């Protein structure tokens, strides 16, 4: 074990040094975003290597001890997502933007889900799935693959600074389209509850748990002015809420989103403090979550199952690309006032960035519903996450520069 560990340390040191050299030559004054992608890949690799499947640095007992952190991540990311829905801010966004965001997500959901269903049908025997599992997994794939994230867009726009209605639309779509995926997985969870709980009870419990978290946050934090106690109590409430959701066999993300939505509309002071807390911990949580995804990737699948998993995973990434491209094409303005084909393409490519939400939703689906079955959705989400980041890192700065050139506002 000592030798393995020494090798592991040397390996990461070598990668770290190589990356440092690479980034220095590639990013002199530029904003390629290479470090984000490499950082994420490294974190993922680290998670996989320390997991029980590879070097067993984390043994199964330790893995159990990591579950509270995983549950906290589920609750936290759900809360963070729901926290965007402040009614005052939403009122300022044109209604058509929100409609287009939801339409784009629904198109991506339908295409990725339908193509996934066809493929799963073809690979049903290899994957050892029954009819219901095929349908459920296809829905889950559609839901997971419809999610985008605005983190990379915001990162690049901070550097390039472009003011254009299309950038606003891009940010709104990337921020809101996750709603379709999150609630679709909530519905899957309610229909195929692991303990067979009745549907109305599951829905009621999800709503109650969302309110319970928001109420606890209000009780504990309404008079708290300091940042550290706010963070500590926030962690406590979200861990407890996520744990309780998992206890009832429910996805911790949906109650987290509900709690976030309620908290976003509480008193402005409390909202600001919560926003600061969520933003401060975001990057750390993000990296931690990617490591955890690596650690929690189930293993021990038979080789014939792997063939199906890999095929569907590659196809899933393609389906997502197709779904997002078609979705974006449909919702972008066309005709005389519309945008050119290149911008349209770059726009849809920028939506490929998936952020932490896709990993959380997929892992949550796996933890709550699937159990020991092939982690198809997690692996597909992981690939979509990696490929999506690469595509988005390539496309977003180009799109922003293009829009900036047209509007004359870019730096």
């Amino acid at each position: 074990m000592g030798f393995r560990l020494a090798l592991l340390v040397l390996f990461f040191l070598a990668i770290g040094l190589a990356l440092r050299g690479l980034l220095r030559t590639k990013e002199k004054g530029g904003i390629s975003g290479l470090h984000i992608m490499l950082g994420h890949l490294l974190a993922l690799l680290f998670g996989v290597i320390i997991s029980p499947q590879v070097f067993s640095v984390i043994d199964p007992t330790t893995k159990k001890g990591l579950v509270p952190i995983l549950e906290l991540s589920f609750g936290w990311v759900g809360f963070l997502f729901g926290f965007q829905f402040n009614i005052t801010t939403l009122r300022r966004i044109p209604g058509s933007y929100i409609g287009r965001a939801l339409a784009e997500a629904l198109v991506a959901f339908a295409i990725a889900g339908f193509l996934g269903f066809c493929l799963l049908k073809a690979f049903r025997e290899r994957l050892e799935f029954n009819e219901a599992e095929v349908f459920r997994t296809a829905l889950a794939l559609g839901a997971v693959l419809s999610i985008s994230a605005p983190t990379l867009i915001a990162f690049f726009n901070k550097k390039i600074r472009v003011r254009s209605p299309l950038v606003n639309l891009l940010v709104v779509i990337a921020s809101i389209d996750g709603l379709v995926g999150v609630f679709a997985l909530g519905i899957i969870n309610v229909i195929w509850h692991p303990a067979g709980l009745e549907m109305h009870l599951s829905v009621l419990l999800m709503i109650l748990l969302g309110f319970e978290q928001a109420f606890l946050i209000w009780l504990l934090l309404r008079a708290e002015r300091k940042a550290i106690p706010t963070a500590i109590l926030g962690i406590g409430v979200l861990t407890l809420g996520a744990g309780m959701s998992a206890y009832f066999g429910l996805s911790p993300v949906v109650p987290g989103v509900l709690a976030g939505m309620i908290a976003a509309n509480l008193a402005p002071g409390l909202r600001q403090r919560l926003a600061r807390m969520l933003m401060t911990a975001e990057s750390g949580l993000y990296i931690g979550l990617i490591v955890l995804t690596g650690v929690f990737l189930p293993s021990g699948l038979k080789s014939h199952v792997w063939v199906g998993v890999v095929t569907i995973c590659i196809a899933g990434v393609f389906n997502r690309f197709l779904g997002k491209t078609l979705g974006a094409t449909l919702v972008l303005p066309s005709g005389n006032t519309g945008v050119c084909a290149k911008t349209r393409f770059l726009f849809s490519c920028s939506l490929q960035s998936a952020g932490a939400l896709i990993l959380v939703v997929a892992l949550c689906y796996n933890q709550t519903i699937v159990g020991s079955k092939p982690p198809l959705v997690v692996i597909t989400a992981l690939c979509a996450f990696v490929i999506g980041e690469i595509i988005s890192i390539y496309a977003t700065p180009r799109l922003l520069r293009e829009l900036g050139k047209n509007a004359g506002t870019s730096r």
Partner: protein
Amino acid sequence: MKLFDKKSLVPFVSRLMAAGIALCLLYVSKMTPEELPPEQKEGILAAIALGGLIILAWVMGDLFQRLSLPRITGYMITGLITGPHILRLMNVETVSSLKFIDNLALSLIALHAGHEVKLGLLRRRFKSIVCITFFILLFSLCGVFVFIYFGGSYIFPFLKEAPRKTILVVALLFGLIEVAKSPVTTIAILDETGARGPLAETTLGIVILKDVILIILFGIMMTVCGRILYPQKAQGGLLGETLWHLFGSLGMGVLIGIIVGFLLKITQERMYILVAALALCLTLLSLVLHLEVLMVSMTAGFMIQNFTAQGKRFLSGIEAISPITYIIFFPVASASLDISLLRDAWAAAVMILILRKIMVFTGINVGSRLTEDFPAMRKYGWMGFINQSGVTLALALIIGKKFPEFGSHFKAVALGMIVITDFYGPALFKFALFKSGEARKR
């Protein structure tokens, strides 16, 4: 802060309500449904326990702070009450599932402790620290040893008919564990009070030095005791293990400290993320290489503070993250204490504790008089060496396993002492820091 201040009463009551809800949810989680997948059951219950503990411990800490008592006493009492031995809102498996997170928190606290030991301070107070440590060790070890060797058969029912060599071993081992003092509580109280000054610095220096010496002595003593009780068995393994624990941990700490110092220079990432990642790596490394996480982390913290230029940046990361580590570490650590053991062992525990206080007081007085140390050390110094949790608990568990004929009784008395000192140890240290004028925050 007054207990019933008009302005803060309403928020406090609403926090109490929140604690009530958390308690109810913890109670609900006791009724584990059978449908919960067994491979996930422990993890899920651990998540609920952790979330509930954080809320409850914070509210209890608030209450204790209003009473001018240390927050960490409130945290420990929360763990004790909700743990598997009183309210049973968590079972033993749930507490052991939280051990990894607890170790992670321990590593962070130890990094902080190591970081607080500055070379300048060591040079300045070297004579006092070494001299006082020597006399505390000498008096505590010898005092408790003599007391138990000659009076053990009267105090402990389990030694009434025991052979002389068993009494000798029990006396040696009690003498040894009476030396232990947890650096974790010391750093937590220093952090809470913001204390800076000779008393705070000397106490921390002595506690860390004692910890290092204790680990060496423990290895030697366990080998010697093994030879006395079981002369036919080979006892070499334990000494080798101890040496590996000590030198392996120190070496790993030095190596990690150097690597982290280099990494801190080249990265601009938020410091709290790096500190958390470092603690995770240290915990995993210690787990895999069977090293002492406390020692590895303390050494790494010491190296970063004294041999790199990144000490200040590193401290900002530790300070941002330390309150959350305390609120996880102390309740979880005290949740595993079995208070019911006190029923049979309280009298013996109290007697040994009184003797220990006298010996520590004498050791500090002799040591500080010889080094002509400042008067506050003689007057209040002993109050910083009461709390025993952490190291004592670990040593008692090892002794319990190694010597089955008296191990369970030994463990009961040791745990009894930990439970008692947990209640008043931190409060006395806080009092000492205020009395000496070194504490800055209420």
